[in-house]
């Protein structure tokens, strides 16, 4: 009778710092951001209401639409590649080969480097390679820019997802394998009928992480290609986040409001797509 409310009180006290940080760092700016997307402003304290004008302009903004399709293509390719790679690296590294711990560390390392730095380093690497083949820089060809981004992201993210998959592999109970072997299942059958279904929770997490990470990608995009090249007035390798940033700091007194509106639209897109993904992958999860 006496204990319960006290515990609740403690819980609240311990929650407070995080909650405060969450409100200051997320909730407030988020609400303010949505609010500002209906305004025209240069600094946030001096805003004039413009209704849904910003949204109309955002949907008319060709570069915004183009960046959506580019981002979507990037997301599809990178989510598949990163997860397939991470899955098989994890599979290989749980086979009890010598030095697997060293490999795990090596594959994980790229995650510890910041995106901007990675972007510049890879820019140099790609340009050096291209130069040795007497080809022009990455920033002059949008296909090269696209695949450059994909390679960079695979290299960086595969290691992180690998760790999650390794945990998943280790979580599959051994008696299931034993039972499958006794029933005469082949190696591929064990993989598809036992391992994969048991790994669904890891797959859910990993697809979710890669999906949202790829959608929101900014640093690597900025540092690797910066959106170049420009074809017919469109920055062909500009992803949505970078495009919003450029719109926000563009010329004209309505630029900031439009950028804000694009940010809100962007948020909705990411939420809808990632919730849909969670729903579909969760459905395939099984209980052991």
């Amino acid at each position, binding site marked *: 009778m006496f204990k319960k409310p006290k515990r609740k009180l403690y819980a609240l006290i311990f929650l407070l710092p995080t909650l405060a940080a969450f409100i200051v760092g997320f909730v407030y700016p988020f609400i303010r951001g949505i609010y500002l997307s209906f305004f025209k402003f240069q600094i946030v304290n*001096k805003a004039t209401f413009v209704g849904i004008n910003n949204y109309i*302009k955002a949907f008319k903004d060709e570069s915004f639409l183009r960046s959506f399709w580019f981002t979507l293509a990037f997301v599809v390719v990178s989510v598949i590649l990163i997860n397939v790679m991470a899955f098989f690296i994890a599979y290989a590294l749980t086979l009890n080969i010598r030095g697997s711990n060293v490999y795990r560390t090596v594959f994980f390392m790229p995650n510890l480097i910041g995106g901007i730095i990675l972007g510049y380093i890879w820019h140099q690497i790609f340009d050096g390679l291209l130069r040795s083949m007497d080809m*022009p820089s990455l*920033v002059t060809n949008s296909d090269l820019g696209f695949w450059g981004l994909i390679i960079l992201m695979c290299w960086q993210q595969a290691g992180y997802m690998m760790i999650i998959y390794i945990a998943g592999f280790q979580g599959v109970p051994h008696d299931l394998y034993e039972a499958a072997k006794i029933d005469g299942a082949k190696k591929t059958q064990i993989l598809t009928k036992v391992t994969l279904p048991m790994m669904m929770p890891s797959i859910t997490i990993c697809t979710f992480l890669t999906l949202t990470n790829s959608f929101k990608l900014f640093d690597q995009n900025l540092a690797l290609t910066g959106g170049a090249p*420009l074809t*017919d007035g469109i920055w062909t390798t500009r992803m949505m986040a970078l495009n919003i940033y450029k719109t926000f700091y563009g*010329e004209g007194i309505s630029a900031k409001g439009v950028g804000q509106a694009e940010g809100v639209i962007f948020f909705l897109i990411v939420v809808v797509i990632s919730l849909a993904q969670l729903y579909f992958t969760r459905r395939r999860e099984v209980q052991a």
Partner: protein
Amino acid sequence: MKKTIKRLAAIGLAALMTAGALSSCSGGSSSSGTDSKKAGDASKGKVYYLNFKPEQDKAWQKLAKEYTKETGIKVSVQTAAEGTYEQTLTSEMNKDEAPTLFQVNGPVGLSKWNDFCMDLEGTDIYKQLTSKDFALKDSDGKVKGIAYVIETYGIIYNKTLLNKYCKSDFASVKKIEDINSFDKLKTVADEIQKNKDKLGVKGAFTSAGMDSSSDWRFKTHLANLPIYFEYKDDKISDTDAIKGTYLDNYKKIWDLYITDSTCKKTELASKTGSEAETEFIKGNAVFFQNGSWEYDAVTKGGLKDKDLGMLPIYIGAGDEANQGLCTGTENYWCINDNASDDDKAATEEFINWCVTSDKGTDAMANKMSFVIPFKKAKESSNAFVKIDNELTKAGKTPVSWNFTTMPSEDWKDGVGAALTQYAAGTGKWDAVKKAFVDGWKTEKEKAKE
């Protein structure tokens, strides 16, 4: 008794505060009056300067300290990282302690920040200007910005190497003074390139790098020339739709830069500004398109005044024999109109001190290598500035800085990207034209929305 005194004091204070609030309101709206200075008390104010030029940061910090020592008025100087001024200014302006002194780069920048700029008509610093042309006016004709530094750019050359060329047997131009047109410049550059081993150089021009540390030399500064000649023909100073009359000339000079170069065309996309600078300092190239702000870097690198010269950028347009260097400014001081009256007054006095006092003018001329357009300016020791003065005295017409009317950063980036692709061979010149002409129109429209 005590209580009544306290109460009276409280009422008095409250009244004072209201009066203060009211006066600050009226001060803000009627600052165009001649006595705008009196609205605030400088000794109670403070100055917060958001500086644009990273290379002068140290000099500004020092000058600010000296000013504080002399007057007791606090001056803080912050410098935005290269290429992020707009972003830094935006976020700083959102703060309670916003900059009292900031800068815009010309009419385009002003259109964005106009509501934040105090009317400077009648201020001391405005009166100190050597020519009222150095004031930046908004569309209503109000003075909102004061140019504080005049810079000059052109084709910097290594005099020793160029003289070596002139004396060699393959040279068809025998005197540096004879280089007074695009055709002559091309002849010289081509001959240097052809005989680069004999001269001991890697190319006539330093690499025209299109990395962001260097691409502004071409997408902004070089692009000024076709705009300048078009404006001159049409007798205008800005336009919503550029025609691109001189884009063929722009192509000619760009072709020259990327062909007679120290490196292959395909390598230009990632070449940096410091690479070009090093090539020039080491004597690997004869020509280097850059400006008076490079003086410190090249002299620290070991080149002497006698090794240095600067040619106008000839593109084969207009009256080439009388063409001068490109001289102008994209640095205008603005005072934040939203600052308190005291702060505004303090800021006004600070910048006035910078350009009139002995310490201020000395620091600006010698520590920052600035040429400032104010009556009490000290002569700068900058060799490129001296060349500019000589050319102007000899009757050459300086090319004005019209790139301040370029529609946006995105426009410049667009032209830059197209130039990069053209140089790399992955794009056609038509793309440059498109980015230049069509891009101008769309970006100008955007800026109006």
